[in-house]
């Protein structure tokens, strides 16, 4: 199904499809990738892991021609590979599936698949064998997608598969996937994994980058670990001794932590939501206690973000929301004034001012503290930034660093700093650790626990079971816009039951 010359039979374990040797990339003052050498065997799923800032992105950018190495060499199928732009990479047989999808919504699946490969005569498009081939490729990896469907009607997961099919049918021998499951529900993840396995069976090599370690154990043949720009190890996954070994290699310390019940939580209800209903939500009612960490768990589309935005007043919703006895939910401004802050789902587009510095980002949610009769108190801003950079351990050499240049985990900490500066008593965290490395994740969980211990309430909206089980005291299970069940976390929590509920199984034996 692909154009590459190697037949599966010839791709023995000893033939690396991609090899890097002594690869180094220097930025002024920083060595982002430091003398990295490893090779990737043909027809395998090769995982690339490391904390944010470990050098994964820089490495991928060099592989795709977006950056050129300072020194070192790369080999593809045994020949020298020196891409200077993304087209070179495609010509070399390396395709990339970025987190942001590059499909054209207004075209059909087929048109998307052949985009940029059209042949024309006298300015008119001509049909070619190409179309048959891409249709076959798509059918082979995901038969359920109709080639004549308009892409705008597809789900994110299906769009992703269209992009994969485009890469595969363009003859790529290596497809790099950067956090492909970040926006997918668990069922969609399963489908993507099936696609990846089919690709591997047809001798396409997949370089798989993810923060979700369980995915790596499920899917990967081999794993390469990077830390601080250095190559730590490349191993067969069968030789890796569980998550803890992988995590240890990634961060050099052990961070695996389970939920431990916190001390007695007050039963003072700070937030009461009754009958929340809108185009997604169906009659959702719940309460949150003072000092409690609650989780809203369910797949993408179950209504998590909608609840968070409704509580924050960002979207209109029917029903009533009371916070500390006062009605809220009309505007974010009102919510913040009442003591509610939101860490939004998309930190780059909704949470951060990426073109501004850390210093300029932190104070935005508390103008009262910042204003002295309308005059800006620069010293308050400066001190707050220094304070939160230290308290949240934001890795930066300066508070004047633009937030777009921070790693994902540190960007998220800046968004947290914004909310903390707002003096909120209730924090709404929508996917707080998405795209965040393991180390920063642990730190964020510690921040959340500390906040709750100080008497603040926290609501976490997450599609990662591990996350809600790891930190929440009480978990609300959502399916298709309604709150199906409530689970109190503890040692004997029933994970299969939870998964059953949020995938549409019947509620039974609710704790």
């Amino acid at each position: 199904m692909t154009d590459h010359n190697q037949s599966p039979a010839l791709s023995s374990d000893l033939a690396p499809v991609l090899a890097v040797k002594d690869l180094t990339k220097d930025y002024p003052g920083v060595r982002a990738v430091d003398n990295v050498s490893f090779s990737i065997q043909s027809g395998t799923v090769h995982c690339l892991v490391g904390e944010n800032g470990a050098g994964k992105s820089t490495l991928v950018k060099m592989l795709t021609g977006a950056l050129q190495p300072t020194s070192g060499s790369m080999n593809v199928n045994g020949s020298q590979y020196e891409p200077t732009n993304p087209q070179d990479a495609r010509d070399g047989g390396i395709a990339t599936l970025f987190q942001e999808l590059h499909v054209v919504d207004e075209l059909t699946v087929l048109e998307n698949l052949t985009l940029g490969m059209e042949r024309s005569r006298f300015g008119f498009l001509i049909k070619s064998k190409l179309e048959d081939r891409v249709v076959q490729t798509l059918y082979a990896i995901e038969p359920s997608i109709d080639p004549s469907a308009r892409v705008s009607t597809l789900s994110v997961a299906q769009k992703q598969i269209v992009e994969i099919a485009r890469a595969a049918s363009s003859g790529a021998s290596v497809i790099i996937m950067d956090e492909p499951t970040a926006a997918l529900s668990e069922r969609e993840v399963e489908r993507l994994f099936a696609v990846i396995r089919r690709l591997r069976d047809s001798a396409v090599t997949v370089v798989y980058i993810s923060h979700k370690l369980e995915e790596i154990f499920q899917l990967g043949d081999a794993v390469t670990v990077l830390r601080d720009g250095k190559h730590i190890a490349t191993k067969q996954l069968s030789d890796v001794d569980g998550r803890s070994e992988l995590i240890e290699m990634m961060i050099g310390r052990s961070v695996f932590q389970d939920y431990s019940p916190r001390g007695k939580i007050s039963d003072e209800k700070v937030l009461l939501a009754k009958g929340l209903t809108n185009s997604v939500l169906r009659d959702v009612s719940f309460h949150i206690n003072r000092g409690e960490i609650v989780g809203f768990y369910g797949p993408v589309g179950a209504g998590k973000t909608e609840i968070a935005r409704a509580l924050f007043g960002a979207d209109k919703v029917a029903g009533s929301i009371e916070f500390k006895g006062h009605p809220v939910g009309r505007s974010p401004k009102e919510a913040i004034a009442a003591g509610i802050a939101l860490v939004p789902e998309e930190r780059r587009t909704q949470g951060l001012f990426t073109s501004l510095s850390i210093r300029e980002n932190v104070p935005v949610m508390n103008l009262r503290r910042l204003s002295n009769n309308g005059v800006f108190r620069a010293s308050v801003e400066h001190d707050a930034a220094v304070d939160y950079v230290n308290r949240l351990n934001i890795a930066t050499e300066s508070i004047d660093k633009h937030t777009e240049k921070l790693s994902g985990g540190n960007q998220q900490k800046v968004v947290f700093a914004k909310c903390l500066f707002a003096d909120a008593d209730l924090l709404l965290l929508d996917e707080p650790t998405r795209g965040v490395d393991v180390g920063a994740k642990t730190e964020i969980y510690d921040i959340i626990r500390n906040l709750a211990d100080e008497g603040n309430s926290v609501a976490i909206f997450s599609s990662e079971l591990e996350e809600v089980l790891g930190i929440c005291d009480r978990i609300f299970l959502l399916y298709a816009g309604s709150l199906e069940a409530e689970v109190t976390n503890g040692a004997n929590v029933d994970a299969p039951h939870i998964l059953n509920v949020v995938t549409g199984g019947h509620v039974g034996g609710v704790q």
Partner: protein
Amino acid sequence: MTVTANIGRSLSDDRRKMSDEAFITLLVASVAVGLFLFASLLVPNFFQLLNMLNLVTNNWAVISLGIGVSFLLVSGNFDLSVGGIVALSGVLSVWFAQATGGANALSTGLGLPYWLAITCALGGALAIGALNALFVVKFRIPSIIVTLGTMMLARGIAQVVTQGSQRNTNLPDEFGVLGNMTMFDTSVKLPVAFMLILLLIAIFIERKTVFGRLTYWIGANPIAASLSGIDKEKHVTYLYLFSSLIAGIVGILLASEFKSGYSNRGTLMEFDALVIALLGGVAIAGGFGSVVGMFFGAVILAIVTSAATGMVLSPDWQYILKAIAVFLAIVTQTWALARRNR
């Protein structure tokens, strides 16, 4: 924690480092100085103090408009209506102040006292600003379209009031005072003083007030601004009202200076105001720029224009020279910023 120690040390270093805005402003100012010296080599008598001052004072109107336009650009919005408002408020101030019972329609006004005439004219200007805000903020129509419409609306009303010509008769004596009076026993005219004071206020607002910072936040990321509790609708409304108020005052001062209300006054001023803001490093996408930069942008444009005149180039060449200056300035800025942030 070792990290803490590091931050403490490098912070003191960083406070001395320039922001990107300061860097661009310095760059624009250097270009202005360089251009001035270059023009002095080519044009006889160009290198004179008086000439330098004239470059600024002759452009008081566009610089004043540039202040409102720059703030709106930083917030991510256009204002193309300011030129039309200049014509409208000028024409209205004349019409309202003209005595009743003139010889013909164009010499007959409403006969209001001058102070009331200019207050009502400012009301007309603010009405255009309110219309801009209404369509941009409430109906979420792109500002470039809205203000293109109100630009034509404002000038259209001016045209109707002057019947496509001008009104300049039957005016009270005090009508010509504001635009021509000099200040503090110097030759500085009131409009120039107005511009200077406005510049100082604008710089203060931009650098030192919460209002100024809100403008940057809204321009840098309107979605994040809303989710951070910023009432961007209210803020952008204020910005449109301020911009139209400035344009209204400029129109009244110009009408007073020439003792006439002319419907074509201020033609293309909205584009000059936009050009000097862009020349001065204000980002067309919002979130970045400064009033000081805009000021030096105006100086650059003035040097190019007046040097061309000094070199006895036909005025027909002015637009091409302006175009070259704009392209060069913007390419230089993009290049310099990219290099700095690499």
